[in-house]
């Protein structure tokens, strides 16, 4: 079934090809004929790759896994926007009905010093994991917890924490930001834990350590253009960045270490 309109279109793909981190890359063109508009963007790449393999050429490497918009693995910069032209979706959820016949589509990897290219469109995002290791947690060993309902959390706070926690760590915020800043990602985790009573004990160390580590990884600075929020497939709000700034300023001034 899918869309009731069964249509096919022709598009031209211009894809970044780069053998590995050390070699230089360049764009290559691929003509795609008769693409069903019910197809997802990545399924079109599957078709292209099968074609390349049959022709004895190197298929295009790209990251993807769950293909339902939650794992955060897919990461294509499509026609000047991370995850393509549609708001609120990841690359894997983008469907060809968002394009028109005759379109030319430029596909690039995330571009950031902190996300080096591995091959073609796949980049290394382990910087995000290291930032989480610097403080994106509540220090509670297994077995230490008291009964869950002993902690009352106002619904508003829980909902807000959840909205921040919905981040999938895809890196679109970094890719979209003209400064390559990771503030939205970091602030989402800081916010989630700052909003909950469980997160209060470590909140000062958390924000200071995470921000410090973020800077060390080579991400850029936030100039509040709001591009990250607009391109975030999960709608993570700029409010989180303000909250992190607040936490950071507060912690910087009051921490006595």
């Amino acid at each position, binding site marked *: 079934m899918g869309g009731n309109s069964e249509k096919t279109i022709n598009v031209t793909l211009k894809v970044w090809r780069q053998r590995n981190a050390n070699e230089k890359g360049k764009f290559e063109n691929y003509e795609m004929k008769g693409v069903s508009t019910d197809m997802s963007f990545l399924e079109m790449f599957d078709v292209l790759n099968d074609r390349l393999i049959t022709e004895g050429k190197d298929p295009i490497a790209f990251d993807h896994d769950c293909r339902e918009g939650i794992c955060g693995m897919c990461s294509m910069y499509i026609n000047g926007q991370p995850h393509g032209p549609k708001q609120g979706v990841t690359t894997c959820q983008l469907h060809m009905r968002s394009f028109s016949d005759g379109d030319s589509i430029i596909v690039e990897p995330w571009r950031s010093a902190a996300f080096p290219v591995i091959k073609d469109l796949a980049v290394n995002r382990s910087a995000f994991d290291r930032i989480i290791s610097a403080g994106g947690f509540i220090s509670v060993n297994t077995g230490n917890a008291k009964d869950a309902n002993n902690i009352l959390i106002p619904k508003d706070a829980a909902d807000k924490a959840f909205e921040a926690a919905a981040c999938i760590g895809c890196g679109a915020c970094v890719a979209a930001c003209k400064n390559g800043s990771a503030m939205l990602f970091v602030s989402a985790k800081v916010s989630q834990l700052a909003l909950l009573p469980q997160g209060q004990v470590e909140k000062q160390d958390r924000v200071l350590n995470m921000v410090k580590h973020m800077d060390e990884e*080579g991400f850029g600075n936030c100039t509040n253009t709001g591009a990250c929020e*607009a391109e975030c497939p999960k709608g993570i709000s700029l409010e989180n960045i303000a909250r992190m700034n607040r936490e950071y300023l507060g912690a910087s001034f009051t921490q006595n270490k």
Partner: protein
Amino acid sequence: MGLTGLFLVSFLVVHVGINACIFFNDNGETFNAAAHFMATNPIIRIMEIGLFLGLLLHVFQALTLTLENKKARPIAYAIVKGSANSSWYSRSMGILGSLLLLFLVVHLGNFWIGTKMAQFNGTINEHNTFDELREVFSKWYFVIIYLIGVFSLMYHLLHGFQSAFQTLGVNHKKYTPAIKKVGIWFSVIVCLLFAAMPITMFLGIIK
């Protein structure tokens, strides 16, 4: 950036206030009185140093920020569709700021140097800033330069005003929409007032 920015904004309020004195259209009497006060009051003189330090800090911050940000993306995208996710002026704060800085050089050359000379020469009491204005704004190219400067300021402020609050951690369901509105009105009104001076004087509306 936010803190120094807001500090500079506070100066704009004073500046635009004094500028507005010309609209008494009293041959610059009120204006000159205000200008004279600013040039001679010792507290203002100390604050002037603070202002310069604030400006220098703002520029220095901007430069470090820009350099760091450039490093964060060593390979540029082939195509960026910025219009899809942000306003052009929020992405052009560096260019707008640089234009402003260039304008400031001209601006200070036009007026501030004259006043300073007068201060050192001890002729500050005879110094007539309003006459200087008349002279500068009789030349069309100065008017154009000033208009460019003022419009750069307006767009710089349109982003900068509300952005400063975000940087300082103020983002609130209740207050942020109000801050944003105030920011827009402030940028537009202040800049229109600034722009009104060269235009009205060039056209001879203010004499």
